[in-house]
């Protein structure tokens, strides 16, 4: 999934980028996660996660909650209901794409085998 690649209409371009997809998928595995847990779970840096969260928050796919544990500030992230729906639809589109392409490949192989 390269940045310059055109996104299929069925795919959601706001979560098509691998890092955004990873963050969305991570958050789909829990109700809420602390910023640091997401960063470590997805294996990305603070600055990259901040940018991704900013973009996903602007798309209203992620909700950000700021709070304190003792005196230390903490940022908690969770998927919004729209975010969950969008992720589900995106994953379905990816599965369809993989299945369609695999079926096309198999048909092409059969045709070339029949010609031979």
């Amino acid at each position: 999934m390269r940045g310059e690649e055109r996104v299929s209409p069925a795919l959601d371009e706001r979560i098509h980028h691998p890092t955004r997809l990873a963050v969305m998928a991570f958050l789909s595995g829990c109700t809420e996660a602390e910023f640091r847990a997401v960063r470590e779970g997805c294996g990305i840096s603070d600055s990259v996660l901040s940018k991704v969260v900013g973009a996903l928050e602007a798309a209203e796919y992620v909700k950000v909650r700021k709070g304190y544990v003792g005196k230390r500030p903490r940022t908690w992230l969770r998927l919004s209901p729209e975010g969950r729906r969008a992720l589900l639809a995106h994953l379905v589109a990816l599965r369809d794409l993989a299945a369609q392409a695999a079926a096309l490949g198999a048909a092409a192989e059969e045709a070339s085998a029949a010609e031979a």
Partner: protein
Amino acid sequence: MPGTPALDAAAALRAAEAAHDAAARPGVVPPAWYPAVNGGLMAAGLTLIGLRWAVPDSWLSVALPLVGALLVAAQVVLARRFEHRPGIIQAYPRHTGRRQVTLTYAGVLVVAAGAGGFFGLAGLYIGGGISGGLANWWLLTRERAGDARP
């Protein structure tokens, strides 16, 4: 070339699944005895607290709620040990549907309210404790079985 989008899509799906699992997997795999002990501690603890209203005023009516509270505290400590994961909040179990969980604990509330209606505070605690303990046992057993599946 049909293989390329298929490979890209399959790779994206695998990465998404791995990220999801990283958040969803438990911090510690609970031992086999944990569901039964969790449910048992809750049932025994609340039952002992509830018996406080079923026995005449004596040293027993003081000791029963104290021991009951200790058992409930032990349940909370165990739950924190085996279910809490720093930085991750799981409001619902991973392998049981939200509807099933809601219905199960709604059933617990109905049993507790029914027992409370018939037997007062003793019934409320004992009914709620036993049904809540059974509900915990059942749900935690399902969660453990779900985590063990590849």
